[in-house]
C-alpha cells in the first residue's frame, strides 16, 4: 500500500519533466502589428486639427481648410515628421503645409524596358546563387572540423 502514493508521485514527476519547453516562450508579434505608431500619430493628428481649427495667427483660411481636408481624407501614419506636442502649434501648421505640398508632387517612377528588367533579374539571381554556394561551403567547412 505504501507503493501506490510513491508511484503516483514518481509518475507525476516524470510527466512534468516531459513538458515541451516551447510552452513557456512568449508569443512574438511581427514588427508591423504593434500599435505603438498609431498612438503617436493620433496625438499629432489632434494637435494639427486643433492648430488648423484655431486659425488666429496662422496663414490664410484656405490653407487651413486644405490641411483639415487633407487630414480627414488621409491616414495619419504619413505625418511622422511632425514636432512633438510641446512645440508651438504654428510650427505644426507650417510643417503640415510643407507635407501637403510634397504629397502633391508626382509619385516617383523609373522608365525601364522589360528587356533590361529581365537581364537585371537574371544577374541578381546569379549573384544570389553564388552567395548561397559560398554560404554552403562555409557550413560544410565548419562541419568538417
Amino acid at each position, binding site marked *: 500500500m505504501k507503493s501506490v502514493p510513491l508511484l503516483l508521485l514518481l509518475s507525476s514527476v516524470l510527466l512534468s519533466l516531459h513538458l515541451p519547453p516551447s510552452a513557456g516562450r512568449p508569443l512574438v508579434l511581427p514588427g508591423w502589428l504593434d500599435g505603438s505608431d498609431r498612438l503617436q500619430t493620433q496625438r499629432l493628428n489632434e494637435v494639427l486639427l486643433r492648430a488648423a481649427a484655431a486659425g488666429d495667427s496662422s496663414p490664410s483660411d484656405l490653407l487651413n481648410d486644405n490641411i483639415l481636408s487633407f487630414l480627414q481624407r488621409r491616414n495619419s501614419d504619413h505625418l511622422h515628421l511632425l514636432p512633438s506636442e510641446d512645440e508651438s502649434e504654428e510650427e505644426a501648421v507650417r510643417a503640415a503645409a510643407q507635407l501637403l505640398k510634397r504629397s502633391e508632387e508626382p509619385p516617383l517612377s523609373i522608365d525601364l524596358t522589360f528587356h533590361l528588367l529581365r537581364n537585371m533579374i537574371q544577374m541578381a539571381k546569379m549573384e544570389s546563387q553564388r*552567395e548561397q554556394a559560398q554560404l554552403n561551403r562555409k557550413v560544410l567547412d565548419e562541419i568538417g572540423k
Partner: protein
Amino acid sequence: MRVMERTFREQLFFLVLCLFVLKGDSRYIENNEISKDDLYSFFNSELKRETAEELMYRRPLRCLDMVAVEGQFTFTAERPQLSCAAFFMAEPNEVLSVDYDSVDIDCRGGDFITVFDGWVMKGEKFPSSQDHPLPLYERYVDYCDSGSLRRSVRSSQNVAMVFFRIHNTGSSFTLTIRKHINPFPCNVMSQSPEGTYTMVIPQQHRNCSFSIIYPVAIDISEFSLGHYNNFPKRSMPGCVETGDFVQLLGGNGIDTSKLLPITDLCISFTGPTHMKIGCDNTVVRMVSSGKFVSRVSFSYRLLDSQELQTIKLNNVEDFCFNN
C-alpha cells in the same frame, strides 16, 4: 516484504518504460544554448541572422541595381546622382525588410531615399492599387520625412524598391535587406520564366495576382473555389458576378489593372487549361469573396521564338505586339 519490493520495482520500471515509449521526446535534441561556435546555429536561420555579422553579404549599391540576396548594400556618391533606383526581389513565399543602417545625406539640400512597397515602372505599379492593402501614398516611405521614427520598412509582397537622389559627392547610406517567410503570399512577381506555383487565398476578401514578366505557355492544372462540383448552369456570360474566379491577363505593363483579360475561369475542374500568351507580362489573378478557400495551381514555361512567331501571325487582336 521482499516480494512486495520486487513487484513494486517491476511496476516502477514498467511505468517508466511506458512513459518514455509513449512520449518519445528523447529522440529530439533540444539545445537552448545560444552560442556563436555551436554548430546548431548554422541550421537555425533565426540564430544565423543574429550571430552571422561576419557572414553577412556586403557589396556596394549601384545607381541602377537589382538585388535578390540578403545583405548590406552601401551606396557612396562619387558624383551627384539625381535619379537612381534599386529593385529588391525575393522568393514568392518571402517578404523583404529594408533597414537603414548609416545614412549620411542632406535632406534639406534635396537628397532623398524613398522605399516603395512594390515595383514602379513607367508610372505603373505592381501590385496595382486594387490588389494592394495600402493606399498609394503609404507605399512610399521617405527617409527624410520619417527617418528617426521608421528605421525599418517591410514589404507586403516579394518585391520592393528604393529611389534615391544624392547631390553631394561623398554622401552615402547603407541598407540592410532581409527576407522573411510569408505563409500566405498574395501578390507575387515571378523571378524566372519557368516554374510551378499554387496560390491559396484562405477565406479572405482580397484579390491576388501572380505576375510573370515573360511570354509564356501556361498550364492551369487545378483550381477550386469552394463551389460544389455540380454548379448549376448560369445564364450570365461572365464570371465576375460569382465573386470568386480566376483571371488570366496579358499586356505590356506591370500594372495588373491595366492589362487586358484573356480569359476568366469560375467553374471548378480538375483538368488542364493550356494557353500560350505572347505578352511581355502574363498575370494569373484570383478574385476571392472571402466565403471560400480558393486555390489555383499552374505551371509555366518560356515560349521560344518560333512559338512567338506563330502566335504573332495567328493573332487577330495583336494587343501584345504593338511595337
